[in-house]
């Protein structure tokens, strides 16, 4: 195990409590350890799942790095702290993992930790003229009154470097080239699927750079959660990725249940798994609709929505909600399934199997769709892993990253289903992965729907839940990738720090890699095929 190895060989390394197995390493050794893990011979940790910035108060400011090897599946987690609160500096790891380019910006934005060597230290979600660092525990909530003036986006970004003598040096980089024709897209734009804004450098119709500007729907959910009790925090998860509402909530419930030692009944597992898969079909149908609409085909758009409506009706009967269901609770689900639920689900799947061929007939083999999707927006397997593009986007690049197989949960270890992967690395593969996953989800539901065991749908829990001290994590496969929850608990009834791994943030970051060299019109098709949802990115 890497963890034991690090503790043994690195002086001052210690294991933190919690199920995450986080190893605290001294700041001076961090970079060496990270490099060692990244380029390990047997199991190189090539997938950086998450960088979570945390304010540990007296201890200092720092971050937790979760990584995983795509070769062996081994995981590791490092914690590193800088005790200088005034000028907190951490060495960047963005040269080891590309995903750190954006995740470190997030930590900088919220906690004011500067990463030395990071080429683009701009704020990510908040306004560039924001005062203070909101996730710091000593942040004054009154320091930013409502501002009605426009935010001016800088065209220059700053890199911080440490000189040999230990002093800090700032180097400026321009964001766009001198001859780039910069077109702004969003935040109000018909096809960014929400309030996403991108600045796009163009040379004629050819894209030279995509610079996403995020935060237009940032609600500070992680900050809010720090003052909510655990049952209250559940309400936020549905509002992250609204097309994976059920799955995100599943992840948080699982994390709290794991930490608090609550066992759920078989029946609950069945219900949760079935609902997860229904949600996945729902989301993928919407993906199909949006992709075809973004490419200018109006008719198939209605096909997807027609079938999705039937799922929403099924959701509504059992949960009362359509888009966001608020169905999972700590220890079970809100209410038992509706008496006609199984019947309706079976009818729906039979119907879906009949109509999916129509979807393919009108769009998949279409010559225009083929020329616009095949070979366009390449994302190599190495880039997908380095950028942390999980979900269908990663699987279309040949990276088998399904959490349901990697870190199985619910009932996924008991049922027979295939992990869909394609090797095309292009928009068309990303499209086909989702279309095939619809059929795979149907298979999963069919295996479960007739065997739901009797039992309690909810285990009694204490009115006030307190989690034991430590760092707790869990992850699920949502409709668009790995959604992770990290809770740092100090034994209170509210979390000390709660972080959600966004499935969409790496995808938005990958837009630059995927779009460069392609035409402006391709950006839309590539964006649609990457399938991101903005509230999940901004949190």
């Amino acid at each position: 195990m890497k963890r034991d190895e690090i503790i043994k060989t690195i002086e001052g390394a210690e294991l933190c409590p919690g199920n995450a197995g986080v190893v605290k390493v001294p700041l001076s050794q961090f970079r060496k350890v990270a490099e060692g893990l990244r380029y390990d011979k047997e199991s190189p940790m090539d997938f950086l799942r998450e960088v979570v910035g945390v304010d540990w108060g007296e201890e200092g400011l720092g971050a937790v790095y979760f990584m995983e090897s795509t070769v062996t599946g081994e995981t590791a987690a490092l914690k590193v702290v800088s005790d200088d609160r005034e000028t907190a500096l951490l060495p960047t790891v963005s040269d080891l993992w590309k995903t750190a380019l954006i995740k470190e910006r997030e930590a900088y934005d919220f906690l004011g930790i500067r990463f030395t060597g990071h080429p683009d230290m701009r704020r990510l979600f908040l306004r560039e003229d924001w005062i203070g660092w909101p996730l710091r525990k000593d942040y004054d909530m009154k320091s930013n009154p409502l501002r009605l003036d426009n935010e001016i986006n800088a065209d220059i970004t700053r890199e911080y470097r440490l000189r040999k003598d230990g002093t800090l040096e700032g180097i400026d980089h321009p964001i766009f080239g001198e001859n780039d024709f910069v077109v702004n897209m969003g935040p109000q734009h018909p096809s960014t699927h929400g309030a996403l804004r991108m600045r796009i450098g163009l040379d004629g119709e050819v894209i030279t750079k995509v610079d996403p500007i995020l935060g237009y729907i940032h609600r500070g959910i992680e900050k809010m959660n720090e003052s909510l009790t655990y049952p209250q925090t559940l309400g936020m998860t549905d509002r992250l990725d609204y097309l994976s509402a059920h799955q995100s909530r599943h992840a948080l419930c699982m994390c709290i249940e794991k930490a608090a030692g609550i066992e759920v009944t078989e029946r609950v597992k069945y219900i949760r798994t079935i609902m997860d898969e229904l949600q996945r079909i729902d989301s993928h149908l919407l993906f199909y609709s949006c992709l075809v609409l973004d490419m200018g085909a109006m008719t198939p758009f209605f096909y997807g929505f027609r079938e999705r409506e039937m799922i929403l009706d099924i959701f509504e009967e059992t949960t009362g909600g359509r888009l966001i269901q608020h169905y999972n609770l700590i220890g079970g689900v809100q209410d038992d399934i509706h008496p006609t639920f199984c019947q309706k689900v079976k009818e729906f799947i039979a119907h879906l199997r009949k109509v999916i061929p129509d979807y393919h007939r009108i769009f998949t083999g279409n010559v225009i769709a083929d020329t616009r999707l095949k070979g366009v927006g390449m994302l190599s397997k190495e880039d997908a892993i380095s950028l942390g593009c999980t979900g269908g986007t990663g699987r279309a690049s040949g990276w088998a990253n399904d959490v349901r197989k990697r870190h199985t949960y619910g009932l996924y270890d008991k049922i027979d289903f295939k992990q869909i992967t394609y090797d095309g690395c292009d928009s068309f593969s990303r499209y086909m992965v989702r279309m095939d996953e619809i059929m795979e989800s149907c298979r999963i539901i069919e295996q479960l729907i007739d065997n739901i065991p009797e039992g309690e749908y909810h285990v009694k829990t204490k009115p006030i839940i307190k989690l034991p001290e430590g760092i707790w994590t869990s992850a699920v496969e949502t409709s668009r990738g790995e959604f992770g929850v990290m809770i740092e608990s100090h034994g209170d009834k509210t979390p000390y720090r709660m972080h959600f791994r966004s499935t969409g943030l790496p995808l938005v970051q990958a837009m630059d890699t995927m779009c460069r060299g392609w035409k402006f019109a391709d950006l839309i098709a590539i964006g649609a095929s990457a399938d991101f949802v903005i509230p999940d990115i901004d949190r």
Partner: protein
Amino acid sequence: MNDYYNLEALTSVIHAALCGVMPEWVALTIECVIVGVIIILLYAVLAVIMIYMERKVCAAFQCRIGPNRVGGKGGLLQVPADVLKILIKEIFTPAHVDKFLYSLAPYLVILASVFTFSCLPWNNGGLILHMNIGIFFVLAASSIGVLGILLAGWSSDSKYTLMGAMRSGAMIISYELSIGISVLTMVVMAGTMDIHELVMGQADGWNIFKGHIPAILAFIIYLIAGNAEANRGPFDLAEAEQELTAGYHTEYSGMHFGFFYLAEYMNLFITAGIATTIFLGGWMPLHVPGLDGFNAVMDYIPGIVWFLGKTFLVIFLLMWIRWTYPRLRIDQILTLEWKYLMPSALVVLVLMTFCTLMGWTF
């Protein structure tokens, strides 16, 4: 052929009657005004019908009902209500635009559209603008439209509109070649550019049958290029909503936007109308050689019904294409035109010339 509905007799009688009570120039002026009003009315009414048709057709393709509330069961008054709404909307002019060109652009577009519209042969004797280079005039007049589009995009002072206009301009200018060549193919066969003569020449059979293989190929090329010329899907990237919001007319509102919208629909009608005229016999009824009884019955159907019937059939075809296919990308569109469509149009032209010379057309 028995022609029961020739309007020429009626128009001559009216002209003679008017000349009897006033000098000829006054009579001509009055006639011009009346015909002008008729054109504009017809233009507007047909646009309303087409918008309604488009909404119903696309609804049918998309498993929907379409407009069904305003004006009874079929939603017949929906489009007139929309027209009324757009008429009373404020025409808003953004601050940074080039005022003169910005206001001029929609009128250029609508002007081109009305010019070409006036050349359509509605019925025997119902041709409004009659000249011996009719088809040539249609092609020339329709090119004014692209000027309006380019001006709209340029004068709006926005990156989106500029890109939309450049795309649209490049596309329309390119596809005009294919249209021109495929029309020329039929002119070679018919031996005339006069729209009236073109239609009269099809009394014994529509051109698409008389010209068999090259005519059918030219018809297909014409439909593809015409679809692009009318800026409709899969060639509607000028206003590719998904990346350019609304392309060249992003900054227009109220009736100025309405003009672009109207012109686009009417261009569809004109494209179909010209296709009907040169390929499908214009107002000529369907005649099958040898079936005299059938032919006699067909002659009882008025020419205008034939013309509109065929035109709307072609429009339906084009709508079907639009609501089925996704949109092409600008470079793919230009590749399609310059590498495939135009060369094949040239080959068809040569083929047709050869067939005509050898007397292989009927």
